[in-house]
């Protein structure tokens, strides 16, 4: 259903992809006093995260002080207790992890958009320590990142292709841009793949030393194509409407790579790209409209400059 309306509108999106609109209206009461109505309309994603934001925005509109909600832990309600997970043996857990990943791989292989999206969301769920516990996420992260896993080789390649080239399969490159639906789908899939990689790195690095990281992690993830794609994402922060979120994720992935992998950090330093310029650009964009991006950019810049 379509309808036309004259209005002032802002289309907003949070880091965890809650989409909502902010509208302004003017109204006059009986005494002819001008009043302004600020309305927030949720378009997608969960009500829980949205309500945390609503209070802050409506308070700020009134000029009142507002508390910044902890966006990192917005989905803690799903947390599975460690006690529940410890009921199953470690062997059963690894079997479950492998079978879950195989299902995700099967979904990603299918020639259907909804199946692909479901597969990627499953990976996001499995790699998040808040959802299935640290043990499960570590198991899954190892399977995704480590080298020589023949069972899940194609899954690795699919995630790699999504991050480096933007598509799951080679033959899909021509489909990008042919219609709005497929473009949005590919963008969403790529964003999810980036988040999966970030979560894998976070879990993996917290449980391994720097030397272990390079040995255990597949060379695929440390290649120049990945770092180059991530730098491009950071550059795009200014150009796309919600590009700051992607840039923020890309920056965090790069941060993990530079601090834990000597191979990847070598690629970044030897790279012909003007990394300092890209980082400065990200900081500038962040200072203008994305505080987390600015903070992460400064943190990364200090690490980059110190070497």
């Amino acid at each position: 259903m379509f309808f036309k309306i004259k209005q002032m509108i802002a289309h907003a999106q949070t880091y965890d992809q809650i989409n909502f609109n902010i509208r302004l209206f003017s109204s006059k009461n009986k005494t002819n006093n001008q009043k302004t109505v600020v309305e927030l309309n949720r378009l997608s994603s969960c009500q829980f995260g949205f309500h945390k934001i609503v209070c802050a925005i409506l308070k700020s509109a009134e000029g009142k002080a507002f508390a910044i909600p902890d966006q990192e832990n917005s989905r803690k309600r799903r947390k599975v207790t460690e006690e529940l997970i410890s009921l199953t043996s470690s062997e059963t857990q690894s079997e479950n992890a492998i079978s879950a990943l195989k299902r995700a791989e099967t979904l990603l292989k299918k020639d259907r958009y909804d199946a692909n999206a479901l597969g990627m969301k499953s990976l996001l769920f499995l790699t998040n320590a808040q959802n299935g516990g640290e043990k499960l996420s570590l198991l899954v992260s190892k399977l995704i990142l480590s080298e020589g896993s023949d069972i899940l080789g194609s899954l690795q390649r699919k995630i790699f292709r999504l991050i480096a080239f933007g598509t799951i399969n080679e033959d899909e490159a021509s489909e990008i841009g042919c219609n709005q639906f497929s473009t949005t789908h590919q963008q969403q899939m790529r964003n999810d793949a980036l988040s999966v990689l970030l979560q894998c790195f976070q879990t993996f690095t917290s449980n391994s030393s720097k030397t272990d990281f390079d040995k255990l992690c597949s060379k695929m993830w440390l290649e120049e194509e990945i770092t180059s794609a991530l730098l491009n994402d950071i550059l795009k922060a200014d150009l796309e409407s919600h590009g700051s979120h992607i840039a923020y994720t890309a920056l965090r992935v790069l941060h993990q790579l530079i601090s834990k992998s000597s191979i990847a950090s070598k690629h970044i330093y030897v790279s012909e790209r003007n990394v300092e310029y890209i980082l400065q650009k990200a900081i500038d964009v962040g200072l203008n409209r994305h505080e987390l991006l600015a903070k992460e950019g400064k943190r990364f810049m200090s690490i980059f400059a110190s070497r």
Partner: protein
Amino acid sequence: MFHKNNNTFRPDKGEESIPPPDFRFCQIKEGINRPMFSSSEKMYGKKGLKAKRQHDYHHWSITDEDVPSLPFMYFLQPTHVIISTIKPSTIAFNIENCLKRLSITAEFDNERVGTSFTYPKIVLFQKLI
């Protein structure tokens, strides 16, 4: 059910000359003149975002007269607030500042009253798990 091989999503053979995609990288000068993109460049367009960049949709620039009146029979969402003491331009500034602090990206439609904004009334089911 959307199938990728469905003809509605795939161009016919005669329509191979699809314009390049607009969601990827475009040419940006990096301070030094050297090629920026790797082999992945071929699948990303160079045109699209230039046009988008011309419009400053990152700032909510409104004047107090621009704000439209509440339409007749428009049912406001419970998530609204009525403010009488602050000017709309100040409200917009406050909201923009808040969005920045919350790290929420926003695209502002700064179209003045007189042009119609059309949008689909859709319901998205994004939660899959």
